[in-house]
């Protein structure tokens, strides 16, 4: 039998249903695993065991009375430290939110609670989700469970590492430019970024509002489908959430087939300098596998790909410079106590509260919105964004899903990349998906010779989650990597 901490959601649900496990046992096993490996992995920024166990007992009582909230009632999940859970800290990897406790639940969190899922640990992240390695976290750098000297990716690196290390059955992350998919690929787990507007952002601390989206990090595709269905739906508290029917994504997986599936292969994605040969090979092998299963490979063009990174770093930083203005020490969070007057309170609080990368992006964003520069940067970036969106619209006229790397290279060493621009450029495969507002999933597709996971992305049109989940499931079914865990 699979160790309970390595179980998927659907396996755990089966055990709960059959009585093979109680929620308390499940949670205790996950907490024990955390106790055993967390010192090496550093995936979590906060854990309140008592609350978890109390919730587990409540869930067990409900189930005993035949009143379980869902088949998943009593299953623990880790939550990225930028989503509000009532009564819990929400530090976003930043000193500026030290001591802050959320007074309400994010809608995504509430939807989990409504089905009986138990928030179990808050996961470490790059500060305010700005980073690709968790190295910008003010608290600690999370280690990649496959190789503890390497980063887990980011910004949802804590969530990806927790799932890969068995510290979580599954986790929630957020994805602004690849922050779910890239760490999923680095840690050998499944990460799904839903279509913009599919999942409510209410309660997700905003980095770049027009790009942010909450999504699951899981051990398999079925779990991603289960969580997507749980999280999705229109939310009156989020004007940008869309009123589209929520599908039973997990049930759709049973009929998944590659036969007749048209898989788009973007030429531009394979011209990227810095694309590691092993990653290129892994993607080409995956394409061949699909072809072998009856799929058709279709070359597609995404001609504005080369502008995606620049466009992203203008729009995202512009929005961030405004979104992060509220962290001033006046109403909540850390306030610098030495400051004498208002202006120095602002300055000192923000100087000490924010890390280097956050400051860099606030300054960039402030600059691109400044009077006299707005048209040259922000306005132009918005126009290019439209072109990037049209690229995908055109591409999806000739294919059902697009196959792409998730990152040009597998997990890098902690401290290996110090140049911000090199770090930014590595976002090339994920970032345009956020700019276009479409959906994408990253699933493990290979191991490098050095034993590091390589992830591949399947991208779908807006509200095309069903297509990418099914395509991912087809691949997963024959993948030799399925069920393979990092050894710790």
């Amino acid at each position: 039998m699979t160790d309970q901490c390595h179980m998927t959601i659907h396996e755990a649900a089966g055990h709960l249903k059959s009585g093979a496990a109680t929620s308390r046992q499940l949670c205790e096993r996950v907490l024990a695993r955390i106790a055993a490996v967390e010192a090496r992995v550093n995936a979590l920024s906060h854990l309140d065991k008592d609350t978890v166990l109390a919730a587990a007992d409540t869930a067990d009582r409900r189930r005993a009375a035949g009143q379980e909230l869902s088949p998943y009632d009593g299953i623990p999940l880790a939550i990225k430290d930028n989503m509000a859970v009532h009564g819990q800290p929400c530090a976003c990897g930043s000193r500026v939110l030290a001591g802050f406790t959320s007074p309400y639940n994010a809608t995504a969190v509430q939807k989990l609670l409504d089905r009986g899922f138990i928030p179990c640990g808050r996961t470490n992240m790059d500060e305010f989700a700005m980073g690709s390695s968790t190295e910008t976290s003010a608290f600690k750098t999370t280690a990649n469970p496959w190789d503890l000297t390497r980063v887990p990716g980011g910004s949802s690196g804590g969530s990806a590492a927790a799932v890969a290390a068995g510290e979580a059955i599954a986790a929630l992350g957020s994805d602004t430019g690849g922050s779910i998919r890239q760490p999923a690929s680095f840690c050998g787990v499944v990460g799904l970024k839903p279509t913009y507007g599919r999942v409510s952002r209410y309660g997700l601390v905003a980095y770049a509002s027009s790009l942010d989206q909450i999504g699951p990090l899981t051990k398999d595709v079925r779990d991603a489908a289960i969580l997507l269905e749980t999280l999705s739906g229109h939310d009156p508290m989020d004007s940008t959430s869309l009123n589209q029917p929520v599908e039973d994504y997990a049930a759709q997986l049973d009929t998944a087939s590659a036969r007749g599936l048209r898989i788009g292969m973007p030429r531009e994605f394979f011209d990227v300098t810095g694309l590691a040969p092993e990653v290129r090979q892994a993607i080409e092998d995956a394409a061949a596998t699909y072809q072998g299963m009856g799929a058709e490979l279709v070359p597609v063009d995404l001609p504005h790909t080369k502008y995606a990174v620049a466009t992203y770093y203008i729009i995202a930083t512009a929005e961030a410079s405004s979104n992060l203005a509220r962290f001033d020490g006046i109403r909540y969070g850390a306030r610098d106590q030495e400051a004498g007057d208002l202006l120095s309170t602002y300055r000192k609080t923000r100087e000490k509260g924010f890390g280097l990368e956050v400051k860099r992006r606030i300054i960039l964003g402030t600059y691109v919105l400044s009077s006299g520069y707005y048209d040259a940067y922000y306005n132009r970036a918005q126009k290019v964004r439209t072109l990037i969106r049209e690229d995908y619209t055109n591409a999806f006229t000739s294919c059902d899903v697009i196959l792409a790397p998730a990152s040009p290279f597998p997990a890098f060493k902690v401290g290996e990349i110090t140049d911000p621009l090199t770090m930014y450029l590595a976002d090339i495969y994920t970032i345009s998906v956020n700019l276009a507002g479409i959906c994408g999933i990253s699933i493990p597709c290979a191991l490098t010779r050095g034993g590091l996971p390589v992830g591949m992305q399947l991208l779908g049109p807006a509200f095309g989650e069903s297509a990418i989940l099914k395509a991912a499931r087809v691949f997963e079914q024959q993948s030799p990597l399925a069920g393979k865990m990092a050894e710790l």
Partner: protein
Amino acid sequence: MKYEAVIGLEVHVQVRTRTKVFCGCSNGAGDEPNTNVCPVCLGYPGSLPVMNAEAIRKTIIAGMTCGCAIARYSKWDRKNYYYPDMPKNYQISQYDLPICEGGEIPIEGKGFSGKPLTPRNIKLTRIHLEEDVAKSTHLGKYSGIDYNRAGTPLMEIVSEPDMHTADEAYAYLTALKQAMQFAGISDCDMEKGQLRCDVNISVRPAGETKLGTKIELKNLNSFRAIHRSIDYEIDRQIDACEAGEPLYQETRRWDDDAGMTTVMRSKENAHDYRYFPDPDLMPVTVTDDQLDTIRADLPECPWSRRDRFVEQFGITPYDADVLTADKALADYFEAAAQGVKNAKTVANWIQTELLAVLGKEGKPITESPVSAGHLADLVALIEADTISGKIAKQVFAEMLISDKSPKEIVKEKGMEQVTDTGAIEGMVAAVIANNPKPVADYQAGNAKAIQSLVGQVMKASRGKANPQMVVQLLKAALD
């Protein structure tokens, strides 16, 4: 040299809605501080705004009232600057695509100084909607912030630089305030911060078409302060021009006690607000059908009502002006005027009797002890010759302290006018017999002498005789 001032006003008006503009909190400033707050209006991490459609509807009503073009598509922008009264350190506002554009507000009557104004229309630039900020109270070393006000829907009504005197600015504000009250948008109580006003002002040699250096005035807390500050600033700027001193584009603060303005912020220190579209909110789209529905229910604006009163009820423009100064008063007049033959009588009664009583007691028309229906009944009794104007005053005095209708009062107190010719003839004969001197005077050609005889007959009837009949019958007996 002769100079001309050019004045434009930026007026903020709080919109009366049940809830705030971007969250479900009660729109109740004035409650216990920081009680009408939630994660959204406190700008807590993760919270998001959701637009209040009623605030948009009322802004459209304001725009229609002022003849603005209503945008089918407008959007929300963030205005970025730091201040503790701003929970997010940006204000959700509208930058380049406001809900309302253009429009005008007619001014007439008198200005604050009492001088008559040349009636004309003051042009508007735009009206947009935004969120109000919190209210700061400075307590020595510390400041208190009440976030109840944060998120109150706030309209900004911007005029063109289209006024030239403090009196015009005053008349414009008065008309604007009336219009907002009539449309049910706001009470516009300046003391409660429901209406706030900044002034843009410059001077130029008369006849020049180019605008002079613009100076913005802030900290204007009453219509009187606005009037005084404009007069002060016009003089200051003209003095500077005449002395050959340069004027700088700047923001100046009005000190109401000292009666002067001082520099607050120079142009170099002006904020760069870094406006950009708010990604948390969808653009506002309005359909023709929605506009038609709003227009069908559009409350009449004060200046239309004033004109209608003159035309429909035959009252003077002056009376119409007084009676439309306040919506409740206009409603009262209109209700009372419905039941009578001559609305002028109603207008007179309201102005000379009712407003005097209310003024003495400091009550608004909504608390009038005499209902509009009863006042109409009273005037109808006069018109039907049931009572005389003089008796009517006694009835009115009784109405102030009783809920009874004037008819009941007249009946109970036996105040009906005597119109019985026989009865009056009897009294006339007695008065003629008992007052030989005025009778003789009258018959000797002193026409005025009849007044004293009329008075005697009225006295004999205890005021109830119909005065016209008394005169008629006296003349018949003496001529």
